[in-house]
């Protein structure tokens, strides 16, 4: 049944995300292809527009994804669609996990697209005459293991952050629709969302490696560093525990959501 939940939730989101992804892809490709001529001047006429378009596309994709994740979960669980969802012969755990995986798949696609758009912004801003220089720099940076690993860590942490946001949204919506709250569920959802985020921040500060003091100390140390490789190594020491913390919080949020959905569902 889990596979079926994933399949139908993926399908439900595909029209909206499909259109957004295609439009974003068009901007990304246009920014890259704009450089295909050798004329620096003609390229400059359209580059700012396309780079702005790519930047806006990143913002739109991220906001769209977060808002739609919340709305989709709310509608399918506590809206009219909930009358079908909760009468399907599917366990509450499978429902939550299935929806999470479907949202995570779209989150991953959007993460990839945002990465492509970032590259398009960087590459699109390079004049055609400087193409070879650009690729030489990229090769040089990628050849340095520390920097390469840091970039991969940052990208992975961002991806895990997207997954964690899905779990936070699910928990906030579930809490906002508990049977004891008969009105203002939307506002309550927002309150719970910010409340969970705030509480998570406070709990994270209790972890020594991620505390406010440790962060400030690392940042001051990194600012003083002249060596880029040492800087990237210091960054890794921060991101690795962050990834573990994010994963733990994600699992905790999903487990709590599953328990609440199983025990306290009451469609009004």
């Amino acid at each position, binding site marked *: *049944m889990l596979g*079926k939940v994933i*399949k*139908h939730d993926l*399908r*439900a989101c595909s*029209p909206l995300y499909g259109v957004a992804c295609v439009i974003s892809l068009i901007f990304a490709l246009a920014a890259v292809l704009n450089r295909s001529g050798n004329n620096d001047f003609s390229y400059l006429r359209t580059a700012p527009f396309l780079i702005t378009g790519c930047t806006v596309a990143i913002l739109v994709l991220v906001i769209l994804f977060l808002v739609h994740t919340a709305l989709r979960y709310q509608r399918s669980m506590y809206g*009219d*669609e*909930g*009358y*079908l969802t*909760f*009468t*399907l*012969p*599917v*366990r509450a755990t499978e429902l939550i996990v299935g929806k999470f995986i479907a949202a995570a798949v779209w989150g991953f696609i959007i993460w990839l697209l945002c990465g492509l758009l970032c590259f398009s912004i960087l590459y699109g801003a390079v004049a055609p005459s400087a193409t070879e220089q650009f690729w030489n720099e990229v090769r040089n940076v990628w050849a340095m293991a520390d920097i390469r690993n840091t970039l991969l860590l940052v990208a992975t942490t961002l991806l895990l952050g997207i997954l964690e946001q899905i779990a936070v949204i699910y928990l906030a919506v579930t809490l906002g629709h508990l*049977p004891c709250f*008969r009105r203002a569920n939307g506002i309550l959802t927002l309150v719970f969302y910010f409340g969970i985020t705030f509480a998570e921040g406070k709990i994270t500060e209790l972890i020594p490696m991620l505390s406010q003091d440790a962060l400030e100390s690392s940042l001051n140390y990194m600012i003083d560093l002249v060596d880029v490789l040492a800087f990237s190594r210091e960054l890794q020491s921060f991101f690795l525990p962050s990834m573990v913390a994010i994963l733990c919080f994600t699992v905790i949020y999903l487990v709590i959501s599953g328990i609440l959905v*199983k*025990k*306290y*569902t*009451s*469609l009004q």
Partner: protein
Amino acid sequence: MSLLEIKNLEHRYGNHTVLAGLHLTLEEGEIIGLLGPNGVGKTTLMKIICGLIQTYDGSVLVNGAPVGIGSKSIISYLPERTYFRKSENIRSAIGMFRDFYADFDEKKAMEMAMDLNLDSKQKIGTMSKGMQEKLQLVFVMSRRAKLFVLDEPLGGVDPATRDYILHTILSQYTENSSILLSTHLVHDVEQIFDRAVFLKNGRVFLNEQVDILRAETGMSLDQYFREVYR
């Protein structure tokens, strides 16, 4: 083993008690009318039976087991509202029912949907309210369920649609299953009921075969309904 066994069921919305120690037992092979005025608890009772409300006290057993995956796989529920996504089309809705319900008869659903002159690729959101309700009934009745729970299937639709709904219910009903149908439009449906369950003050006021009720009271079900809830 009874098809549905409810003991001492209680449910509150805030400070308002809707169901107050309700007892009810239903057997296979009957069309049961769940009757009562608005706000008496018919919809709440049906939601509890179908697993849409889990915050209740008391015991609800469907085919001897508590409400859960087992009961949901043998209950076919028609709520008062449309539960399909507006962007969904008939074909994808059929696909969903086929995937989740082992007892779903896809061929029957397709035939009944085509009888409504609908295009399988037409989006449900573009259909009229009456057409959406008919379509939803088609999906519900296309299952070989043991218990059909139909919540106010006749409410808010025109007389022609009402006839279609009644015809569909009767034509798809089999003696291996039961239908629990709630309504306050008793006059339109009383002829199809085998049994009537009247709710009052959060409890079952009367649970009797319709023929016996008519013989004992000398009234039609509609007349008796008006008498009870005057």
